[in-house]
C-alpha cells in the first residue's frame, strides 16, 4: 500500500499512520499528503480501485466529528495543498488552496483591510475542512453560513476526477449549484483542493458588550429586544451556566454608538448589568475549541427558551451552554462524556431530546468515542431524502471509500 501510494504522490508524501493521527482511537494505516489536485486524484483513484477507506484531514480540528469506525486505511491530509492562489483585493474575492489554514487567509487579507467571512472556533482549521463541515460561529447572524461565501470549488472526487464547480464571480447561475452540495458534505463527496470565496471589508468600528442578568429568561427577553432595535447586533451569544449575553456591534462609528445606546437601554429596563468586553467572543471561541464534547440543539428562533431548556437537560448541572440567540441554535458542552456512566447519561439525554422535538435537530458536533458508540451523531437522515442522499454520494464516490462509515449514510 505504502509503495503504491509513494509511486503516486511522491516518496516523502506518504508515511505510516501513528497514534497521534488516530480518529476515535483508530490510527490510519498510512498517511498521504499529496501536494496538489493531480496527486490527490491519483491517490483517490488508486484507493477506489483497491477499496481502501479514506479519511480526509485538514487542520485536524474536527476529527472527533462523525461516527467511530473500526478501520481507516488511508488518512489523506491536505496539509501540503496550501496557499493563496489568487487575490485581487478590489474584487473582494480570493482563491485559496483547500488545505490553507483559516488563520493564514485572515492574516493575508487583513493587510488590505478585509476579512474572510468564516468563523470556525479554531484558526488552525483548514478552509476546505470548514467548508466540508459547513462550520459557522457567532457571525452567522450577519454573514450567514459558509455556503453563502463560496463562489467556486475544485473538488477531487472519490474516484479521482477533478471537478471545477461554480466560478470566481460573486453572482453566477450557470449550471447546477454544486457548491451547495459540497459545502456541508463532510468530505463524503471528495477532497476540496481549491476554493474561491467572498471577502468583506473590515468594519470601521466595533464594540462588544456583555449583559449579565439574574436569570436566563431575563437575558432571552433582552436578546429579543436587541434584535428588534434599528441597529441589530452582528453577533448575539447567550452563554451560561453563569448567564451572560454578548452583543457585537459593527459599522460606522455612529452606527456602533447607536447600538451601544440601544443595548444600554435594554439592560436598564431588564435590570441587567452591562459592560464592554471586546475579547468576549474570542474567549468563547477558545472555550468551544477546547471542549471535548459539543452538542448542537437547533430549532426555530422563536422557540429559543424551549431550545435552551433542552440544552440544559443535556448539559446537566456541570456543563456549559452557548447559544446563537438570534438563530435558535445552542451548543452544549457537557462534562464527563469520556467516562462510561457519563456518556450513558448524555446519550440518554440526547435521545430524549430528539424524541421530544418536532422540527428541530440535536447533532453531536464533536463527540467522545464513548458517547458516539452509544448514540448516532445526527439521529439519521430523514427517511424521505435518504435515497437521494445515497445516490448523490454514489455519483461522486462510487466505491464508497470516503469517510466510510463515518457519516449519515
Amino acid at each position: 500500500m505504502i509503495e503504491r501510494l509513494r509511486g503516486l504522490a511522491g516518496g516523502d508524501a506518504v508515511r505510516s499512520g501513528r497514534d497521534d493521527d488516530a480518529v476515535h482511537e483508530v490510527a490510519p494505516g498510512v498517511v498521504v499528503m499529496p501536494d496538489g489536485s493531480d496527486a490527490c486524484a491519483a491517490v483517490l483513484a488508486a484507493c477506489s480501485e483497491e477499496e481502501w477507506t479514506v479519511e480526509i484531514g485538514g487542520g485536524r480540528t474536527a476529527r472527533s466529528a462523525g461516527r467511530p469506525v473500526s478501520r481507516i486505511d488511508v488518512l489523506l491530509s491536505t496539509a501540503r495543498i496550501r496557499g493563496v492562489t489568487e487575490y485581487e483585493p478590489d474584487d473582494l474575492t480570493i482563491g485559496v488552496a483547500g488545505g490553507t489554514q483559516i488563520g493564514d487567509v485572515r492574516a493575508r487579507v487583513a493587510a488590505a483591510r478585509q476579512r474572510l467571512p468564516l468563523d470556525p472556533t479554531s484558526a488552525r482549521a483548514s478552509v476546505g475542512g470548514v467548508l466540508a463541515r459547513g462550520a459557522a460561529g457567532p457571525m452567522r447572524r450577519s454573514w450567514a453560513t459558509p455556503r453563502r461565501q463560496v463562489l467556486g470549488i475544485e473538488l477531487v472526487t472519490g474516484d479521482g476526477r477533478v471537478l471545477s464547480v461554480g466560478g470566481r464571480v460573486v453572482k453566477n447561475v450557470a449550471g447546477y449549484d454544486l457548491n451547495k452540495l459540497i459545502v456541508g458534505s463532510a468530505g463524503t463527496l471528495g477532497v476540496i483542493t481549491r476554493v474561491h470565496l467572498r471577502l468583506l471589508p473590515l468594519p470601521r468600528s466595533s464594540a462588544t458588550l456583555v449583559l449579565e442578568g439574574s436569570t436566563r429568561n431575563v437575558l432571552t427577553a433582552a436578546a429579543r429586544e436587541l434584535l428588534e432595535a434599528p441597529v441589530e447586533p452582528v453577533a448575539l451569544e447567550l452563554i451560561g451556566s453563569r448567564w451572560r449575553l454578548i452583543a457585537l456591534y459593527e459599522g460606522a462609528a455612529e452606527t456602533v454608538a447607536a447600538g451601544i445606546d440601544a443595548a444600554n437601554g435594554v439592560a436598564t429596563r431588564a435590570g441587567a448589568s452591562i459592560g464592554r468586553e471586546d475579547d468576549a467572543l474570542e474567549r468563547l471561541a477558545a472555550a468551544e475549541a477546547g471542549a471535548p464534547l459539543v452538542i448542537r440543539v437547533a430549532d426555530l428562533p422563536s422557540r429559543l427558551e424551549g431550545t435552551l431548556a433542552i440544552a440544559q437537560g443535556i448539559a446537566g448541572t456541570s456543563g456549559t451552554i452557548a447559544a446563537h440567540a438570534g438563530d435558535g441554535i445552542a451548543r452544549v458542552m457537557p462534562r464527563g462524556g469520556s467516562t462510561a456512566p457519563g456518556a450513558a447519561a448524555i446519550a440518554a439525554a440526547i435521545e430524549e431530546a430528539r424524541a421530544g422535538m418536532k422540527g428541530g435537530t440535536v447533532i453531536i458536533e464533536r463527540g467522545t468515542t464513548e458517547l458516539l458508540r452509544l448514540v448516532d451523531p445526527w439521529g439519521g437522515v430523514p427517511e424521505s431524502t435518504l435515497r437521494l442522499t445515497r445516490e448523490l454520494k454514489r455519483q461522486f464516490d462510487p466505491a464508497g471509500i470516503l469517510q466510510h462509515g463515518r457519516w449519515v449514510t
Partner: protein
Amino acid sequence: MAGVTLPPPLDAGLAAELRALLGDEGVLTSPSEMLVYESDGLVAYRVPPRAVILPRDTAETAFVLRALAEQRIPFVARGAGTGLSGGALALEEAVVVSTARMGQVLELDAANRRARVQPGVINAELSRLAAPHGLYFAPDPSSQSACTLGGNVAENAGGPHCLKYGVTTDHVLALTVVMPDGSVLEMGGDGETIGYDLVGLWVGSEGTFGIATELTLALASLPEARATMLAIFDRLDDASHAVSDVIGAGLLPAALEMIDQATIRAVEASIFAAGYPVDAAAALVIEFDGARAGLDEEAARAADICTARGAREVRLANDDTERDALWRGRKKAFGALGRLAPELLVQDAVVPRTALPRVLARVMEIGAEHGLRIANVFHAGDGNLHPCILFDRRDPDQLERVERASREMMRVCVEAGGTVTGEHGIGLDKREYMNGLFDEPTLQAMCSVKRVFDPAGLANPAKVLPVRVCREWVGPATRVKVAP
C-alpha cells in the same frame, strides 16, 4: 404560425382523468388557449406545448406528475413566464405545468421572519403582505411585480438589492417538492441540515429536478432608513471605475446600479422621464440602507468617491418621492428601451468587479463592430452586466449580427474570469456556452446529479446542460420555431 408542427394531443383517457381532478379550467388543450404558453420572456423562441395543466396544490401536482410519468410525457413547470433564457419552453413535446393556481401565502411567521408560500405567489405580493410586520422578501428582480416566487427559486433570481442581501438561494429555508415520478419530498426544516444541502442544490436547477410546490422563505427586516443618490458622469469609463472604487473602499451599498447614455435618453424620451441629464455618459444609482445612525456617513463617502472619479453632479434624494424618482430611470429602463426598436435582447453576464471598466468598454466596441445599438443598465456593484441589444428581427442580416455579437460578448466575459449568466439562467438560450465554461468531468457530474433527481429525463427536458452531455435526453426532434 405556418410551419409549426403541433405536438400530439394528450390521449383522451389521460385528459379525462386530469379534468376529473382539476376541472376543465385546470387542463387546457386548445391551441388558442395555449398560445400564451408558447414562449416566455425570451420571445425569440416559440414552442407550442402539448397541453397546459394547472394543479392547485402539492397533492394535485403529485397526481399530475405521476400520471404523466406513467406515459413518459415530459413536463415544464411555469410561473409567470417572465424568464429571459427560454427556460419555460415546452421542448420535447412537453406538457406545461403552470403554477398560476398555486398563489396562496400559506403562513406568515413574523416571529421567525419567514413565510411559507405556494410557488405561484408574485414576488412583490409577498413583500406587500409582509410589510405590516416590518418585513419584506429581499430578492427584487426587475420583473418583481409579475414574476412568481416559484420561478425565482427555479432560476435563483437576483435583482438590484442582491448586492447586499444576496440572491434567492440565500433566502430559501425549506422546500416541499414533487419529484418527476410524482413522489413528494420535504427538504430543509426548523433545525440544522442533516445530510446534504438539498435545498441549496435544488434552487437554481431551472425546473429540471421536479416542481417545488411549497416554499419556506426568509424575510428581512425593513430598513429604518435609506440614503439614495444619483451620480452623473461625463465619461462611461469614469463611472465604471467609480463602481470599483466604492466596492474597493469597503462600502457596502444595498444597491449599486449603472445606466448608460443610451438608456438615459430612452428613459427621458418616455413617459417615465426621471430628470436624468440626457448629455450624461452614464449615471450610477447608489443606495445605502439600514439603521439611520451612520447611514449619511456611508452615503457621503460614496458621494466623495464618485466626485473624485469625475462625477459632475451627485444628487441625493431627500425624501421617498425623490428616491422613487431616482430609481424610476433604472426600474423603467427596459420598458423605455423596448420602445426604441422592434426587439430588445437583454444579455446577462458577470465579470470580476475590477474587470468592469475594461469589459464594458469592450462590450461597446463589439456593438459598434457589428453595427448594433447597445444600451447598458445593470447591477454594477456585483459586476453583473446587462447589455441590451436593440434590433429588428425582420432583417436577417441584423439577426445574424446580434447572434455573433452576443457570442463575442460572452467570450469576453468568460475570458475576464466571469460567467455567462448571473441571474437569468442557462435555459435553452445559453446551453451552448456551458462547454466553454465547464470542463467535461464537471458537466458530466452535473448530468449525473440531474439523473439522480430525474432518471427518466422528464423534468424540463433539454435545458441547462448541452444535449451532447446528457445524451439520453435526446427525444423526438425538438421543434424550436423562431418567431416570424
